[in-house]
């Protein structure tokens, strides 16, 4: 049976080494039309159509575009900024969305640190899900709201005065974030909470029901509280190792969730890591959550990255947690009201302290570092920045994949030097010009 195809231009990428089904495949081609990846066999036999334009990848790796699920801003722009006018904020968001493309990032979750309800009311509507384009910038997948339901003890650079508890259950969240929270994942894709805060853990199922991905972070919780939160529906850990209890062998804390053996097995695979050799059950989706890793070499020691990865390889998600100073030279900047200092390693500290506030690393640098730290294959490193974040958000059929039906967001990588370097970026099938 033949399917109706549109008459728009068909593109064919030749001489590329494609990342398909966890492997690098040669002598294969990538076909796309109308910004989606297609299977051209029916087109050829039923509609006598061949490629209208051939793109020569000249032997480069062709992989899905990178997805960054935690980024606070860049180029001097902060997503939690609410002082400017709506028009200016919108322009700033566009600047970041366009700027991220050069690092191979074709989709991201703009992250808003703990703020007061007025800030969310103003800023969240501008961070709703928005399709990407080569001229308009990377796709916005919805906001990542980090706090204010987090722990004072593990606040990092967040402003403590806006922290609160959830005694009133889901109503507390609605009052903290405003009406946008009712839109669910279209407005808020990810929410980071600390489960030991009163009322938070019990409210997780209500948040999950709205389609929001619940992540545990900035928390001083013990292992039992953490596992309970996962049982209640949390599917991610925010920047593992940072802003949580240090690992102790008799009290492993939030980090210890990676070693959980008897969490209830998920009933669906959506939103959960695929089974790996270290999964509790090799045939079902992994009940352990995904976990974000900041691979700037500063936030987490390379050895720690390695330990975490190999204990739960299918759950690793690379994030930048970059803040407004990303893309700018070293110096002093502000984030969410705090004053920061960026040193020559790109690490951002609260001015005058040794408390990390965020990074200035880019997602492609994260992929390179991750591969170096863990000695994993290029495929594994790339999947940690593409497939896994897509699986976390339940969108792995559109993003993070080169399978038929996926969005035509992809990146040409040069691996000839042993490191993965971004050469070309395509959003919805159009090449981005830098």
């Amino acid at each position: 049976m033949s399917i109706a195809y549109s008459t728009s231009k068909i593109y064919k990428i030749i001489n590329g080494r494609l990342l398909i089904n966890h492997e690098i495949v040669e002598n294969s081609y990538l076909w796309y039309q109308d910004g989606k990846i297609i299977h051209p066999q029916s087109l050829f036999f039923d509609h006598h159509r061949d490629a209208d334009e051939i793109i020569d990848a000249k032997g480069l790796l062709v992989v899905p575009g990178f997805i960054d699920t935690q980024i606070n801003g860049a180029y001097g722009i902060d997503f939690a900024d609410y002082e400017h006018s709506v028009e200016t904020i919108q322009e700033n968001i566009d600047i970041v969305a366009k700027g991220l493309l050069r690092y191979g990032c074709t989709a991201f979750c703009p992250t808003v640190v703990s703020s007061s309800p007025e800030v969310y009311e103003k800023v969240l509507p501008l961070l709703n899900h928005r399709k990407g384009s080569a001229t308009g910038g990377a796709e916005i997948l919805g906001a990542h709201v980090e706090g204010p339901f987090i722990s004072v003890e593990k606040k990092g650079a967040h402003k403590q005065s806006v922290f609160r508890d959830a005694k009133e259950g889901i109503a507390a969240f609605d009052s903290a974030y405003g009406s946008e929270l009712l839109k669910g994942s279209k407005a808020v894709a990810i929410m980071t909470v600390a489960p030991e805060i009163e009322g938070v853990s019990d409210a997780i199922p209500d948040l999950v029901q709205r389609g929001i991905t619940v992540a545990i972070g900035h928390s001083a919780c013990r292992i039992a509280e953490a596992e309970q939160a996962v049982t209640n529906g949390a599917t991610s850990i925010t920047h593992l190792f940072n802003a949580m209890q240090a690992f102790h062998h008799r009290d492993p804390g939030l980090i210890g969730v990676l070693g959980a053996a008897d969490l209830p097995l998920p009933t669906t695979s959506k939103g959960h890591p695929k089974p790996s050799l270290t999964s509790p059950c090799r045939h079902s989706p992994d009940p352990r959550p995904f976990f974000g890793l900041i691979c700037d070499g500063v936030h987490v020691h390379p050895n720690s990255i390695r330990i975490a990865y190999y204990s739960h390889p299918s759950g690793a998600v690379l994030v930048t947690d970059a803040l407004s100073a990303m893309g700018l030279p070293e110096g002093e900047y502000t984030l969410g009201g705090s004053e920061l200092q960026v040193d020559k390693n790109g690490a951002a500290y609260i001015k005058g302290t040794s408390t990390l506030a965020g990074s200035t690393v880019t997602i492609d640098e994260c992929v390179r570092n991750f591969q170096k730290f863990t000695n994993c294959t290029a495929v594994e490193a790339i999947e940690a920045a593409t497939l896994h974040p897509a699986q976390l958000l339940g969108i792995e059929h559109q993003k993070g994949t080169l399978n038929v039906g996926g969005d035509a967001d992809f990146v040409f990588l040069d691996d000839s030097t042993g490191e993965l370097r971004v050469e070309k970026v395509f959003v919805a099938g159009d090449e981005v010009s830098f």
Partner: protein
Amino acid sequence: MRLIIREDYEEVAHYIANYIKERINQFQPSSERPFVLGLPTGSSPIGVYKKLVELYKSGELSFQNVVTFNMDEYVGLPRDHPESYHSFMWKSLFMHVDIVPENVHILDGNAPDLDEECKKFEADIARVGGIELFLGGIGPDGHIAFNEPGSSLTSRTRVKTLAYETIIANARFFDGDISKVPKLALTVGVATVMDAREVVVIITGAHKAIALAKCIEDGVNHMWTVSAIQMHPKGLIVCDEDATLELHVKTVKYFKSIEHVHHSLIGAENLSLQGGVKQLRSPVSNDRPQTPFE
């Protein structure tokens, strides 16, 4: 009939791909006068297609003015099923090269009227002026296309029920489950293939040795349908050493020696052997000759 014997499957595939390339290039096809090629499926031609793709990618061969007709297709299998012959040809050849989609003809196993489809196929072949070169393989039972033992040697494109042996052989592509293999197929007839101006058959492997022996050393017989090639003015069989295991030593030595003489006297580049012996040259050496296009 010519019998070309090469060491192994690699060399056989290499020879045939280069032979086809030379034939197409010497023909100098154009859009008004395209090169009409008949093509098979199965495991035998995979190496040939791979080599043809390489020749296309290196710029030595273009399919712009090549029209193709495939031998067969399963009945009732969806066209985009991974084991359909449409899928096989797409993955093996068409997706890699510059062939024009309208120039590709494969029988439609899902046509509402199968007999009409077969008649239409024959008419399409006639409309382009007949097939210039038909490449085919051979089954262990000596069949060409799906013309199983007992098929009329004058048969044309029609619906055929597959022989049990064929279904077993094909089960490996359907998870080893013979109940999943289609029982019917559309196939070109023996006469359809023999109507081509040249027929090239690839025969490799020890399991084909008996079939090769029956087809060229015994008589023309509907139980070994490839034997019809004995009645063709321009037949070429390319085989590997293993496939010759059931032939008489005399047959093998004969064909090896005439290949040598052919190259010395006529020149290896004279593919069609037309024009006869232009110039008598003394034989160069007793070693197996090197054709210029190998």
